[in-house]
């Protein structure tokens, strides 16, 4: 009975809660980007951001049973956000058509009317795939399934697990947050160098609510969760870079899956980290956070192009209110959330992520010719600035 409850609990916390949270917050996205995949990514980012804030607060403020407090507070907030998703979907379904597309309008497929209408941009709709493309999708999913099965069947050895995985297990078994030395078990003051990267505590939370040993959650459950999530991200990148030729996406995905699987050319590549240390924060920074940053900049550059095309066709290009928020502000909010995920994974991610955003903002500035992107870039790295400020203030605090 216990394994079944554990698996149901994993499905609830890893799929349903982020999914419903996405429904709560996907209103920030432009209509055509409100797909199930992007909504799920938004939900996951929101959940991780909330967890990061709660975990750091409990870690630095609570002395005894810090992890229990962390779990309780986060559970209440996470469920409230998920409940918001149920409420919002009910309202949407009551008001509009009772269909999946009402909740995820970005999933709408271009019908004959959209294809023929001079006003509709059919490229923004999802297309029906040809039989050949469906075969390619099938091959990709077979490769993904193979990788997921291998993540259960094969074990990798990495010395850092003696630190990170034990931190998660200590939270689950000893109810502490980074105040016991993982290597030996003696008590210590808060380990600031790793403490703010709370991904270990999130894994411990998943372990605690599912009743599954944190080491199993790290080594088996995390790959099963993060492999599809990372590939979903590549699908979203593919959707933008192959916008007019979506039938290429499955071929792109097969190639990416092969590149990752055969990318173990050294111990340093993102592919090696992806398969051999999936549960460690730095692996997620290299394989999830950085591609996410590229994805959002592709998204913004695509929007810039759309606006230029619209301006060329004489369409008025000034949007205000909600539309302005969705079209111009939401990508920066996404970047802010991605930066929070980055901090939750690794302090290194915060620094590297900021550099990458600075580089890509220059590219965006060149194409958009709008200095306001600098404000967006500054606002989205505010979480990073706060994170570093907290890091150094805790680091220099007397023990």
């Amino acid at each position, binding site marked *: 009975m216990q394994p079944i409850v554990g698996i149901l609990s994993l499905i609830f916390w890893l799929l349903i809660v982020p999914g419903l949270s996405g429904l709560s917050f996907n209103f920030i996205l432009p209509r055509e980007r409100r797909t199930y995949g992007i909504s799920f990514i938004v939900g996951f980012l929101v959940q991780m951001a909330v967890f990061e804030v709660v975990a750091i607060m409990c870690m630095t403020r609570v002395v005894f049973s810090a992890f229990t407090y962390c779990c309780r507070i986060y559970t209440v907030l996470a469920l409230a956000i998920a409940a918001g998703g149920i409420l919002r979907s009910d309202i949407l379904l009551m008001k509009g058509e009772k269909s999946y597309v009402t909740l995820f309008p970005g999933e709408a497929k271009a019908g004959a009317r959209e294809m023929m209408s001079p006003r509709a941009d059919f490229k923004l709709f999802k297309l029906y795939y040809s039989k*050949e493309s469906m075969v390619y999708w099938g091959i990709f999913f077979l490769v993904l399934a193979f990788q997921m099965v*291998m993540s259960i*069947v094969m*074990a*990798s*050895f990495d*010395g850092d697990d*003696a*630190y990170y*995985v*034990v931190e998660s*297990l200590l939270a689950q*078994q*000893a109810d502490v947050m980074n105040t*016991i*030395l*993982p*290597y*030996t*078990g003696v008590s210590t003051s808060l380990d600031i160098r790793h403490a703010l990267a709370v991904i270990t505590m999130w894994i411990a939370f998943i372990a605690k609510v599912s009743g599954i040993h944190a*080491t*199993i959650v790290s*080594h*088996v459950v995390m790959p099963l969760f993060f492999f599809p999530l990372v590939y979903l991200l*590549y699908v979203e*990148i593919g959707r933008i*870079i192959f916008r007019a030729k979506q039938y*290429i996406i499955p*071929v*792109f995905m*097969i*190639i*990416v899956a*092969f*590149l*990752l*699987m*055969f*990318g*173990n*050319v*050294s111990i*340093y*590549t993102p*592919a*090696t980290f992806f398969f*051999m240390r999936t549960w460690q924060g730095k692996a997620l920074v*290299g394989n999830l956070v*950085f*591609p996410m940053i*590229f994805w959002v900049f*592709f998204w913004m*550059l695509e929007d810039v192009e759309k606006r230029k095309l619209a301006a060329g066709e004489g369409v008025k290009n000034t949007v205000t209110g909600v539309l302005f928020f969705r079209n111009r502000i939401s990508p920066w909010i996404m970047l802010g959330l991605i930066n929070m995920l980055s901090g939750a994974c690794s302090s*290194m991610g915060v*620094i*590297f992520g900021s550099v*990458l955003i600075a*580089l890509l903002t220059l*590219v965006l500035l060149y*194409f958009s010719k709008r200095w306001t992107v600098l404000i967006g870039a500054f606002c989205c790295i505010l979480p990073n600035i706060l994170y570093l400020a907290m890091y150094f203030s805790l680091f220099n605090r007397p023990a």
Partner: protein
Amino acid sequence: MYGIFMECWVSFKLYFGKPWLAVLLVASALYLIITEKDLRKKIILGILPLVIMAGFLFPVTKKVYVAALDDGSDTYYRILWLIPMYVVIGYAACRIIFSFSKSAWQRIALVVILAVIAMSGSLVYMNQYMSVAENLYHIPQSVIDVCDKIAPGEGGPRVRAVFPSEMVHFVRQYDTKILMPYGREMIATQWDYYNVVYEAMEKAEVINAKELLDATRLTECTYIVLRKDRKIDKDLTELGLELFETVGDYNIYLDPVIMEHG
């Protein structure tokens, strides 16, 4: 400056291991710079990767990086993570495949490209640190078997035990109620710490039983786990320890003195 450049170059070569993936990446970026008409993609997927690689090899970047970060020398290679390597190669490959108008040629091109990737890379499952999992914990079963024998019961006080080096990484991944006098910090070659138990347990070719016992009593170890074939000058039972259990290739010795006072 030349010396630092060579350090960067060595890091670059170590990062890519086999050179073919680097060749594929550079070739893909150059191909996109030459053929891509969309300037946005040309910059992000063509020019930017080359700029990041050039920045990585530029000695000043390394000087600044190492000065700014404590572990800068060890993590410098992560700058290369900023290159969206798999998107660049994947996108360039798709452009080549779909530049053929006939679908038969497209299929052949896909198969050829996948074969090139497989041959230029290295399959992760063939890595020397990958092995068939012995259990869902993905740690050696022998560690679990030993830990199950010495782990304190529900609500019981924690115990401290010394393990041979091949087990040290895994013990606390299984049960954090088992403490150790030393952990991975002593095994990892990059650190050079001193630990009295480690000196007695691992440094000597033949363990001096008396020295080991003095050290384990000093650090209040209730158990000593030794491989059966580990050379030791005297049987630990002769010094008052009890052979608590034999599990597979390992003998577990219990120290009644620590057990009583612990």
